[in-house]
């Protein structure tokens, strides 16, 4: 009898040790959660190593890695190099997503309305009040736009999507930068707030003559009427995996700045102007934990592109992946 108990106890110890050794803990951004958990599932099936990712929000992810309670944190907004030095963190991008303006105007179909940064900026500032404003008309000579008030919809909760959208406006429109600024939550001059992407998608679907902004996947799944946007190269582009990829390929990520970059207004000819990367944060002193985390992401970069595209995310371009591998090697955290 005693033997059995000891055996059970021993196996318990062994099991818990292997389990503890084979689990990676991460926490943070909600936006990349579906793709991280899909990768984690595939990785577990292949290697037996578990990745436990809690989507508690970017703010929470940053706090957790700052307090060293997780192996990695995840944030939709990049941290500035000074902050990374202060918190002693490494940072690299893992996945790319796009933000898409969507409208609800009767008889205007998806991909028909053309907008540029300046117009969107002044709609969200409340200066452009009606759909038949000369500025919008000048961009859309072929559309018959009604004299109806524009219902502006934005996010009510703090979010990486808002951070990307407002950074885009602040970069392209000086008035926005001066009056509102960029951030995960801002003081909106006009409009009503929807909670989450689903909240904004719901309002835009329901309220006639409205405009909102959502992640690409939500626009696609809810069949919302997305707009074309004029990019810095002067072309009107439609949101698609390809135009997000072009944005990723032409965005200049710098490993010496720990990849700190907002991927908005990328210079590529067909680049979608409102895209953003989601970032991974690691503690500098924990090189063995980092190697485990990086092994996972290296595996995901090599095997996970297909599933990411299926989930409406954009995988990192090849050159950027190479840059990240070099960044790991330079800092001695390559898997």
């Amino acid at each position: 009898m005693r033997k059995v108990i000891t055996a059970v106890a021993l196996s318990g110890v062994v099991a818990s040790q292997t389990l503890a050794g084979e689990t990676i803990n991460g926490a943070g951004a909600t936006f990349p959660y579906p793709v991280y958990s899909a990768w984690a599932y595939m990785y577990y099936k292949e290697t037996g190593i578990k990745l436990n990712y809690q989507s508690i929000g970017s703010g929470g992810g940053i706090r957790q890695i700052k307090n060293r309670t997780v192996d990695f944190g995840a944030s939709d907004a990049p941290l500035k190099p000074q902050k990374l030095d202060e918190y002693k963190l490494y940072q690299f991008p893992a996945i790319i997503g796009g933000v898409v303006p969507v409208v609800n105007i009767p008889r205007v179909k998806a991909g028909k309305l053309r907008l540029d940064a300046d117009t969107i900026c002044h709609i969200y500032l409340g200066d452009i009040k009606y759909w038949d404003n000369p500025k919008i008309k000048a961009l859309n000579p072929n559309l018959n736009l009604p004299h109806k008030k524009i219902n502006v919809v934005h996010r009510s909760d703090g979010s990486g999507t808002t951070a990307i959208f407002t950074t885009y406006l602040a970069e392209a429109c000086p008035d926005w930068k001066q009056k509102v600024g960029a951030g995960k939550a801002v003081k909106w001059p006009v409009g009503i707030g929807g909670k989450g992407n689903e909240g904004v998608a719901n309002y835009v679907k329901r309220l006639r003559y409205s405009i909102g902004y959502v992640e690409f996947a939500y626009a696609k799944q809810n069949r919302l009427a997305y707009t074309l946007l004029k990019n810095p190269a002067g072309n009107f582009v439609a949101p698609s995996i390809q135009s997000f990829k072009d944005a990723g390929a032409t965005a200049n990520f710098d490993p010496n700045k720990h990849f700190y970059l907002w991927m908005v207004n990328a210079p590529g000819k067909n680049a979608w102007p409102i895209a953003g990367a989601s970032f991974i944060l690691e503690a500098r002193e924990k090189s063995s934990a980092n190697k485990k985390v990086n092994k996972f992401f290296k595996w995901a970069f090599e095997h996970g592109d297909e599933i990411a595209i299926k989930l409406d995310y954009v995988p990192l371009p090849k050159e950027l992946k190479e840059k990240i591998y070099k960044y790991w090697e330079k800092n001695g955290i390559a898997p």
Partner: protein
Amino acid sequence: MKRKLPLSDIIFGIVSFSASFLVLTLIFSTILILYNESSLAIHRFGILNFIFTENWDPVNEIFGAAAPLYGTFITTVLSLLFAIPVALGIAIFLTEVSPHFLKSPIGVAIEMLAAIPSIIYGMWGLFTLAPIMAEYVEPALQKTLGQIPLIGKLFEGEPQGIDLFTASVVLSIMIVPFIASIARDSLNLTPNIMKESAYALGATKWDVIKDIMIPYAKLGIYGGIVLALGRALGETMAVAFVLGNNHQITLSLFEAAATITVTLANEFTEADTDIYLSSLFYLALILFVLSFVILAIAKFFLLKAERGYSR
């Protein structure tokens, strides 16, 4: 001769004492933690300045609680205004008017209403009630009440269904069962002999309800209202989806607004700077103190009424 307490009694005493002591510890540690976490914001913005500042600007790190406080106040008052008459009507119907076979099904239905999780009220509000409000109810109100001078100011603006009015309606539906079931139980406690005496004196049914039963059940009804008030003050998920979280003070009920709980639910996860997080904790501390004070005042009045009553 002094009898020694049996061991089981001593153990029971210790266990029950520590259980009740735990409640006190929890309350005090909650206050302490809230105060501790919000101390940064308290030092930066002060108390009165924070309460009376409408500006809520995370980009420039300026925070003020005036707008969410106003929203909390308006939604709570409005929802009580909607809920009290309805709930009292239900209670009176159930005790006096309803035929016997209807009493228990309606009573059970009301109690089930109280058991629905608030997130379900929230989703229902967003997907079902808000469109109805925007399409039918709010335009109709604008055409009627909105035409009256002064009062019309309350109904200005584009009806979008995401506003103080819709939030108050959702909230009132949520608190109706609390008031109704407690009021029904108190009305049921009216001694039959009093009712019968009144009838014997020639009182009508309405006279009995108005002059015998309601005065008799007054305390219980107040108690139910206080309970509902506490619920409305702190309710989060039922209103988080239909209020918009816009930090503005507007006279119109058809404008998006914010309450303390809605702000917390919307902004807590992504608050990344220390002062932002601290300001959110500060809001939570204010709500905690506010509910505490309101419940204390209500308790005080109840006690006073009770004493006057027993005399």
